[in-house]
Protein backbone atom coordinates (compact mmCIF):
# COMPACT_ATOMS: atom_id res chain seq x y z
CA UNK A 1 0.00 0.00 0.00
CA UNK A 2 2.74 2.46 1.03
CA UNK A 3 4.70 1.68 -2.12
CA UNK A 4 1.67 2.32 -4.30
CA UNK A 5 1.02 5.63 -2.57
CA UNK A 6 4.67 6.60 -3.07
CA UNK A 7 4.45 5.76 -6.77
CA UNK A 8 1.21 7.74 -7.11
CA UNK A 9 2.79 10.72 -5.34
CA UNK A 10 5.77 10.48 -7.67
CA UNK A 11 3.48 10.73 -10.67
CA UNK A 12 1.41 13.52 -9.13
CA UNK A 13 4.51 15.53 -8.23
CA UNK A 14 5.90 15.14 -11.73
CA UNK A 15 2.62 16.36 -13.22
CA UNK A 16 1.80 19.30 -10.93
CA UNK A 17 4.54 19.32 -8.29
CA UNK A 18 5.31 23.01 -8.78
CA UNK A 19 1.65 23.85 -8.07
CA UNK A 20 1.72 21.68 -4.94
CA UNK A 21 4.72 23.63 -3.64
CA UNK A 22 3.19 27.01 -4.53
CA UNK A 23 0.02 26.12 -2.63
CA UNK A 24 1.95 24.58 0.29
CA UNK A 25 0.18 21.28 -0.29
CA UNK A 26 1.18 18.35 1.91
CA UNK A 27 1.36 16.05 -1.11
CA UNK A 28 4.50 17.81 -2.37
CA UNK A 29 7.55 15.58 -1.97
CA UNK A 30 10.55 17.18 -0.31
CA UNK A 31 13.97 16.17 -1.59
CA UNK A 32 15.45 13.54 0.71
CA UNK A 33 17.49 10.38 0.80
CA UNK A 34 15.31 7.27 0.92
CA UNK A 35 16.09 3.71 1.89
CA UNK A 36 13.57 0.87 1.55
CA UNK A 37 10.89 3.48 0.82
CA UNK A 38 11.49 5.44 4.02
CA UNK A 39 13.13 8.87 4.28
CA UNK A 40 16.57 9.09 5.87
CA UNK A 41 17.24 12.35 7.66
CA UNK A 42 20.62 13.94 6.86
CA UNK A 43 21.85 13.64 10.45
CA UNK A 44 24.78 11.64 11.83
CA UNK A 45 22.51 9.36 13.87
CA UNK A 46 20.01 8.67 11.08
CA UNK A 47 22.72 8.00 8.49
CA UNK A 48 24.67 5.75 10.85
CA UNK A 49 21.51 3.75 11.57
CA UNK A 50 20.52 3.49 7.93
CA UNK A 51 23.99 2.65 6.62
CA UNK A 52 25.76 0.57 9.31
CA UNK A 53 28.21 -0.69 6.69
CA UNK A 54 28.80 2.64 5.01
CA UNK A 55 31.79 2.74 2.71
CA UNK A 56 33.94 5.65 1.56
CA UNK A 57 32.70 5.28 -2.04
CA UNK A 58 29.07 6.22 -2.55
CA UNK A 59 26.82 6.21 -5.58
CA UNK A 60 24.01 8.77 -5.65
CA UNK A 61 21.02 7.50 -7.66
CA UNK A 62 18.55 10.07 -8.96
CA UNK A 63 15.29 8.98 -10.59
CA UNK A 64 13.46 10.62 -13.47
CA UNK A 65 10.23 12.51 -14.09
CA UNK A 66 7.15 11.14 -12.30
CA UNK A 67 9.22 8.37 -10.69
CA UNK A 68 10.59 7.50 -7.32
CA UNK A 69 13.76 5.50 -6.64
CA UNK A 70 11.55 2.46 -7.21
CA UNK A 71 12.14 2.90 -10.95
CA UNK A 72 15.54 1.23 -10.48
CA UNK A 73 14.09 -1.89 -8.83
CA UNK A 74 14.72 -5.20 -10.58
CA UNK A 75 13.14 -8.56 -9.77
CA UNK A 76 14.68 -10.02 -6.63
CA UNK A 77 15.11 -6.68 -4.90
CA UNK A 78 18.24 -5.74 -6.80
CA UNK A 79 18.97 -2.45 -8.51
CA UNK A 80 22.02 -0.66 -9.90
CA UNK A 81 22.80 0.62 -6.40
CA UNK A 82 22.77 -2.72 -4.59
CA UNK A 83 24.63 -4.40 -7.44
CA UNK A 84 27.38 -1.76 -7.30
CA UNK A 85 27.49 -2.24 -3.53
CA UNK A 86 27.89 -6.00 -3.82
CA UNK A 87 30.35 -5.92 -6.72
CA UNK A 88 32.44 -2.82 -6.06
CA UNK A 89 31.71 -1.81 -2.48
CA UNK A 90 29.85 1.42 -3.27
CA UNK A 91 27.19 2.54 -0.80
CA UNK A 92 24.00 3.45 -2.68
CA UNK A 93 22.25 6.67 -1.70
CA UNK A 94 18.79 7.00 -3.28
CA UNK A 95 17.41 10.50 -3.75
CA UNK A 96 13.68 11.11 -3.99
CA UNK A 97 12.49 14.53 -5.11
CA UNK A 98 9.61 16.51 -6.54
CA UNK A 99 10.21 16.11 -10.28
CA UNK A 100 7.63 18.79 -11.10
CA UNK A 101 9.86 21.57 -9.81
CA UNK A 102 12.21 23.36 -12.19
CA UNK A 103 15.33 21.30 -12.85
CA UNK A 104 17.44 24.24 -11.68
CA UNK A 105 15.69 24.22 -8.29
CA UNK A 106 16.13 20.48 -7.87
CA UNK A 107 19.78 20.79 -8.85
CA UNK A 108 20.39 23.47 -6.24
CA UNK A 109 18.53 21.43 -3.61
CA UNK A 110 20.55 18.32 -4.45
CA UNK A 111 23.80 20.26 -4.19
CA UNK A 112 22.79 21.51 -0.75
CA UNK A 113 21.71 18.01 0.34
CA UNK A 114 25.03 16.48 -0.76
CA UNK A 115 26.95 19.20 1.07
CA UNK A 116 25.04 18.33 4.24
CA UNK A 117 25.54 14.60 3.80
CA UNK A 118 29.25 15.07 3.25
CA UNK A 119 29.52 16.50 6.76
CA UNK A 120 27.43 13.88 8.58
CA UNK A 121 28.07 10.65 6.68
CA UNK A 122 29.33 7.86 9.00
CA UNK A 123 32.77 7.65 7.34
CA UNK A 124 34.77 10.18 5.35
CA UNK A 125 33.58 10.11 1.76
CA UNK A 126 36.40 9.49 -0.69
CA UNK A 127 34.47 9.29 -3.94
CA UNK A 128 30.97 10.17 -5.09
CA UNK A 129 29.61 8.51 -8.23
CA UNK A 130 26.58 10.22 -9.75
CA UNK A 131 23.98 8.06 -11.50
CA UNK A 132 20.93 9.72 -13.03
CA UNK A 133 18.10 8.23 -15.01
CA UNK A 134 16.27 10.38 -17.56
CA UNK A 135 15.46 13.73 -15.90
CA UNK A 136 17.64 12.61 -12.99
CA UNK A 137 20.71 13.06 -15.18
CA UNK A 138 19.71 16.66 -15.88
CA UNK A 139 19.16 17.24 -12.16
CA UNK A 140 22.67 15.91 -11.54
CA UNK A 141 24.10 18.26 -14.15
CA UNK A 142 22.19 21.17 -12.62
CA UNK A 143 23.54 20.14 -9.20
CA UNK A 144 27.14 20.06 -10.40
CA UNK A 145 26.58 23.42 -12.09
CA UNK A 146 25.20 24.88 -8.83
CA UNK A 147 28.02 23.26 -6.86
CA UNK A 148 30.66 24.70 -9.18
CA UNK A 149 29.21 28.18 -8.81
CA UNK A 150 28.98 27.97 -5.02
CA UNK A 151 32.18 26.03 -4.43
CA UNK A 152 30.31 23.17 -2.75
CA UNK A 153 32.67 20.81 -0.90
CA UNK A 154 31.21 17.61 -2.39
CA UNK A 155 32.02 18.42 -5.99
CA UNK A 156 35.78 17.65 -5.84
CA UNK A 157 34.89 14.14 -4.68
CA UNK A 158 32.94 13.40 -7.86
CA UNK A 159 35.10 11.55 -10.33
CA UNK A 160 32.48 10.06 -12.61
CA UNK A 161 28.89 10.68 -13.63
CA UNK A 162 26.65 8.13 -15.31
CA UNK A 163 23.66 9.30 -17.35
CA UNK A 164 21.09 6.67 -18.25
CA UNK A 165 18.54 7.68 -20.89
CA UNK A 166 19.02 11.36 -20.10
CA UNK A 167 17.66 13.84 -22.67
CA UNK A 168 20.70 16.13 -22.75
CA UNK A 169 19.33 17.93 -25.78
CA UNK A 170 15.71 17.83 -24.69
CA UNK A 171 12.68 15.66 -25.27
CA UNK A 172 10.81 16.20 -28.55
CA UNK A 173 7.49 15.05 -27.11
CA UNK A 174 7.42 17.97 -24.70
CA UNK A 175 8.40 20.40 -27.46
CA UNK A 176 5.60 19.08 -29.65
CA UNK A 177 3.20 19.43 -26.72
CA UNK A 178 4.29 23.03 -26.29
CA UNK A 179 3.55 23.81 -29.92
CA UNK A 180 0.18 22.04 -29.87
CA UNK A 181 -0.79 23.95 -26.74
CA UNK A 182 0.16 27.26 -28.36
CA UNK A 183 -1.81 26.39 -31.50
CA UNK A 184 -4.90 25.48 -29.48
CA UNK A 185 -4.62 28.74 -27.58
CA UNK A 186 -4.35 30.72 -30.81
CA UNK A 187 -7.70 29.39 -32.08
CA UNK A 188 -10.43 31.85 -31.05
CA UNK A 189 -12.65 29.23 -29.50
CA UNK A 190 -13.38 28.82 -25.79
CA UNK A 191 -13.24 25.01 -25.97
CA UNK A 192 -9.79 24.83 -27.56
CA UNK A 193 -8.52 27.46 -25.12
CA UNK A 194 -9.86 25.33 -22.27
CA UNK A 195 -7.91 22.32 -23.59
CA UNK A 196 -4.82 24.54 -23.87
CA UNK A 197 -5.33 25.71 -20.28
CA UNK A 198 -5.47 22.11 -19.08
CA UNK A 199 -2.37 21.21 -21.12
CA UNK A 200 -0.48 24.15 -19.66
CA UNK A 201 -1.10 22.91 -16.14
CA UNK A 202 1.82 20.53 -16.63
CA UNK A 203 4.65 21.19 -14.26
CA UNK A 204 7.72 23.36 -14.67
CA UNK A 205 9.88 20.27 -14.44
CA UNK A 206 8.07 18.66 -17.35
CA UNK A 207 8.33 21.84 -19.41
CA UNK A 208 12.06 22.03 -18.64
CA UNK A 209 12.52 18.65 -20.29
CA UNK A 210 11.57 20.06 -23.70
CA UNK A 211 14.91 21.78 -24.19
CA UNK A 212 16.77 20.32 -21.19
CA UNK A 213 16.72 23.69 -19.43
CA UNK A 214 19.08 23.47 -16.48
CA UNK A 215 19.08 27.09 -15.41
CA UNK A 216 16.33 29.61 -14.76
CA UNK A 217 17.75 31.89 -17.45
CA UNK A 218 17.33 29.04 -19.96
CA UNK A 219 13.68 28.72 -19.02
CA UNK A 220 13.15 32.44 -19.45
CA UNK A 221 14.47 32.27 -23.00
CA UNK A 222 12.11 29.52 -24.02
CA UNK A 223 10.36 30.14 -27.33
CA UNK A 224 7.80 28.30 -29.38
CA UNK A 225 10.29 27.39 -32.08
CA UNK A 226 11.27 23.77 -32.20
CA UNK A 227 14.95 24.38 -32.71
CA UNK A 228 18.06 23.15 -31.05
CA UNK A 229 19.55 25.27 -28.33
CA UNK A 230 21.86 28.17 -28.87
CA UNK A 231 25.62 27.65 -28.38
CA UNK A 232 25.50 28.69 -24.73
CA UNK A 233 23.29 25.77 -23.88
CA UNK A 234 23.39 23.18 -22.46
CA UNK A 235 25.47 23.87 -19.40
CA UNK A 236 28.91 22.51 -20.26
CA UNK A 237 29.98 19.22 -18.77
CA UNK A 238 32.46 19.81 -16.00
CA UNK A 239 35.91 18.76 -17.23
CA UNK A 240 36.89 17.53 -13.77
CA UNK A 241 34.34 14.67 -14.02
CA UNK A 242 34.45 11.62 -16.25
CA UNK A 243 31.05 11.58 -17.98
CA UNK A 244 29.44 8.35 -19.25
CA UNK A 245 26.28 8.21 -21.34
CA UNK A 246 23.87 5.33 -21.87
CA UNK A 247 21.11 5.49 -24.48
CA UNK A 248 18.39 3.06 -25.44
CA UNK A 249 17.01 2.44 -28.91
CA UNK A 250 13.91 0.48 -29.79
CA UNK A 251 15.85 -1.24 -32.55
CA UNK A 252 19.17 -1.07 -34.35
CA UNK A 253 17.57 0.39 -37.47
CA UNK A 254 19.05 3.80 -38.15
CA UNK A 255 15.69 5.47 -38.80
CA UNK A 256 14.19 4.03 -35.61
CA UNK A 257 17.14 5.27 -33.57
CA UNK A 258 16.88 8.70 -35.15
CA UNK A 259 13.12 9.12 -34.90
CA UNK A 260 12.17 7.25 -31.78
CA UNK A 261 15.27 6.46 -29.75
CA UNK A 262 14.08 4.61 -26.67
CA UNK A 263 10.49 5.78 -27.36
CA UNK A 264 10.90 8.86 -25.17
CA UNK A 265 14.44 10.15 -25.63
CA UNK A 266 16.06 10.15 -29.08
CA UNK A 267 19.53 8.62 -29.22
CA UNK A 268 20.88 11.95 -30.45
CA UNK A 269 19.59 13.62 -27.28
CA UNK A 270 20.88 10.95 -24.91
CA UNK A 271 24.31 10.95 -26.58
CA UNK A 272 24.26 14.34 -28.24
CA UNK A 273 27.45 15.90 -27.09
CA UNK A 274 29.50 15.51 -30.21
CA UNK A 275 27.14 17.59 -32.32
CA UNK A 276 27.45 20.35 -29.76
CA UNK A 277 31.22 20.37 -30.00
CA UNK A 278 31.72 18.64 -26.68
CA UNK A 279 33.28 15.50 -28.07
CA UNK A 280 33.23 12.61 -25.65
CA UNK A 281 35.48 9.62 -25.83
CA UNK A 282 33.37 7.02 -27.74
CA UNK A 283 34.20 4.47 -25.08
CA UNK A 284 32.11 6.54 -22.68
CA UNK A 285 28.98 6.44 -24.83
CA UNK A 286 26.99 3.24 -25.15
CA UNK A 287 23.78 2.66 -27.12
CA UNK A 288 21.68 -0.40 -26.32
CA UNK A 289 19.49 -1.54 -29.22
CA UNK A 290 16.19 -3.11 -28.23
CA UNK A 291 16.09 -1.13 -24.99
CA UNK A 292 13.09 1.05 -24.18
CA UNK A 293 13.06 4.05 -21.85
CA UNK A 294 11.16 2.00 -19.27
CA UNK A 295 13.66 -0.87 -19.40
CA UNK A 296 16.89 1.10 -19.33
CA UNK A 297 16.91 1.94 -15.58
CA UNK A 298 16.77 -1.74 -14.60
CA UNK A 299 18.68 -3.80 -17.09
CA UNK A 300 21.49 -6.20 -16.29
CA UNK A 301 23.06 -5.42 -19.67
CA UNK A 302 23.15 -1.73 -18.83
CA UNK A 303 24.44 -2.57 -15.37
CA UNK A 304 27.36 -4.52 -16.83
CA UNK A 305 28.41 -1.38 -18.68
CA UNK A 306 27.93 0.85 -15.62
CA UNK A 307 29.96 -1.57 -13.53
CA UNK A 308 32.77 -1.51 -16.05
CA UNK A 309 32.86 2.27 -16.00
CA UNK A 310 32.76 2.37 -12.19
CA UNK A 311 35.48 -0.26 -11.86
CA UNK A 312 37.91 1.65 -14.05
CA UNK A 313 40.64 3.45 -12.11
Amino acid at each position, binding site marked *: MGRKIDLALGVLNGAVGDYLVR*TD*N*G*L*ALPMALHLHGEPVAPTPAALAAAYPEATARVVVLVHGLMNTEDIFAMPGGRDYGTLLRDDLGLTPLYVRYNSGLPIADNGAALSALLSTILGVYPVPIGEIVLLGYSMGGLVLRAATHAAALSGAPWLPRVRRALYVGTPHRGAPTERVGRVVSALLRAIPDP*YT*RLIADVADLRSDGLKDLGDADLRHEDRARRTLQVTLRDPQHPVPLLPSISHHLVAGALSDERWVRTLFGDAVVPVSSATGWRSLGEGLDPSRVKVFPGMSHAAIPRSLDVYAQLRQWCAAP
Partner: protein
Amino acid sequence: MVRRAMTPTGKKRLLGLRALLEDVVEHGSSAVERVHRETAERTFAVLAAIPPVAGPARVVHDVHDAALTGVYGSIRLVNRAVGAVLTVVIEEATKPDRE
Protein backbone atom coordinates in the same frame (compact mmCIF):
# COMPACT_ATOMS: atom_id res chain seq x y z
CA MET B 1 -7.85 -0.08 23.39
CA VAL B 2 -5.47 2.45 21.88
CA ARG B 3 -5.89 3.12 18.21
CA ARG B 4 -2.67 3.76 16.34
CA ALA B 5 -2.46 7.43 15.42
CA MET B 6 -1.78 8.42 11.85
CA THR B 7 1.76 9.67 11.27
CA PRO B 8 2.24 13.42 10.79
CA THR B 9 3.23 12.73 7.17
CA GLY B 10 0.06 10.67 6.58
CA LYS B 11 -2.12 13.38 8.03
CA LYS B 12 -0.32 16.05 6.02
CA ARG B 13 -0.89 14.06 2.86
CA LEU B 14 -4.56 13.52 3.66
CA LEU B 15 -5.04 17.24 4.16
CA GLY B 16 -3.08 17.84 0.98
CA LEU B 17 -5.36 15.50 -0.97
CA ARG B 18 -8.40 17.33 0.39
CA ALA B 19 -6.91 20.68 -0.63
CA LEU B 20 -6.01 19.40 -4.09
CA LEU B 21 -9.52 18.05 -4.72
CA GLU B 22 -10.98 21.35 -3.58
CA ASP B 23 -8.63 23.21 -5.94
CA VAL B 24 -9.65 20.97 -8.84
CA VAL B 25 -13.35 21.70 -8.31
CA GLU B 26 -12.70 25.41 -7.71
CA HIS B 27 -10.55 25.99 -10.78
CA GLY B 28 -12.43 23.46 -12.90
CA SER B 29 -15.80 25.09 -12.27
CA SER B 30 -14.33 28.53 -12.99
CA ALA B 31 -12.91 27.30 -16.31
CA VAL B 32 -16.17 25.63 -17.34
CA GLU B 33 -18.09 28.76 -16.33
CA ARG B 34 -15.84 30.86 -18.56
CA VAL B 35 -16.38 28.52 -21.52
CA HIS B 36 -20.13 28.46 -20.87
CA ARG B 37 -20.27 32.25 -20.70
CA GLU B 38 -18.17 32.81 -23.84
CA THR B 39 -20.20 30.24 -25.81
CA ALA B 40 -23.49 31.85 -24.78
CA GLU B 41 -22.13 35.29 -25.66
CA ARG B 42 -21.86 34.23 -29.29
CA THR B 43 -25.51 33.23 -29.47
CA PHE B 44 -26.69 36.37 -27.71
CA ALA B 45 -24.53 38.51 -30.00
CA VAL B 46 -26.36 37.06 -33.03
CA LEU B 47 -29.77 37.65 -31.43
CA ALA B 48 -28.80 41.21 -30.47
CA ALA B 49 -28.18 41.95 -34.14
CA ILE B 50 -31.80 41.10 -35.08
CA PRO B 51 -33.97 44.14 -34.21
CA PRO B 52 -37.29 42.35 -33.44
CA VAL B 53 -35.72 40.02 -30.88
CA ALA B 54 -32.87 42.22 -29.63
CA GLY B 55 -34.88 43.60 -26.70
CA PRO B 56 -36.18 40.32 -25.29
CA ALA B 57 -32.82 38.69 -26.00
CA ARG B 58 -31.09 41.28 -23.80
CA VAL B 59 -33.43 40.41 -20.95
CA VAL B 60 -32.86 36.69 -21.43
CA HIS B 61 -29.11 37.37 -21.61
CA ASP B 62 -29.16 39.17 -18.25
CA VAL B 63 -31.21 36.39 -16.64
CA HIS B 64 -28.90 33.79 -18.13
CA ASP B 65 -25.79 35.52 -16.80
CA ALA B 66 -27.30 35.90 -13.35
CA ALA B 67 -28.26 32.22 -13.29
CA LEU B 68 -24.80 31.27 -14.49
CA THR B 69 -23.12 33.25 -11.73
CA GLY B 70 -25.48 31.77 -9.17
CA VAL B 71 -25.11 28.16 -10.24
CA TYR B 72 -21.32 28.11 -10.57
CA GLY B 73 -20.92 30.28 -7.50
CA SER B 74 -23.01 27.87 -5.45
CA ILE B 75 -20.89 24.94 -6.68
CA ARG B 76 -17.77 26.69 -5.41
CA LEU B 77 -19.47 27.65 -2.16
CA VAL B 78 -20.54 24.07 -1.46
CA ASN B 79 -17.07 22.87 -2.45
CA ARG B 80 -15.43 25.17 0.10
CA ALA B 81 -17.94 24.16 2.77
CA VAL B 82 -17.30 20.46 2.12
CA GLY B 83 -13.56 21.16 2.22
CA ALA B 84 -13.87 22.90 5.57
CA VAL B 85 -15.92 20.03 7.00
CA LEU B 86 -13.42 17.48 5.68
CA THR B 87 -10.57 19.35 7.33
CA VAL B 88 -12.34 19.09 10.70
CA VAL B 89 -13.13 15.42 10.11
CA ILE B 90 -9.50 14.64 9.21
CA GLU B 91 -8.21 16.56 12.24
CA GLU B 92 -10.57 14.65 14.53
CA ALA B 93 -10.11 11.27 12.90
CA THR B 94 -6.33 11.44 13.11
CA LYS B 95 -6.25 12.21 16.82
CA PRO B 96 -5.31 9.19 18.93
CA ASP B 97 -8.41 8.27 20.94
CA ARG B 98 -8.95 5.89 23.79
CA GLU B 99 -11.88 3.69 24.59
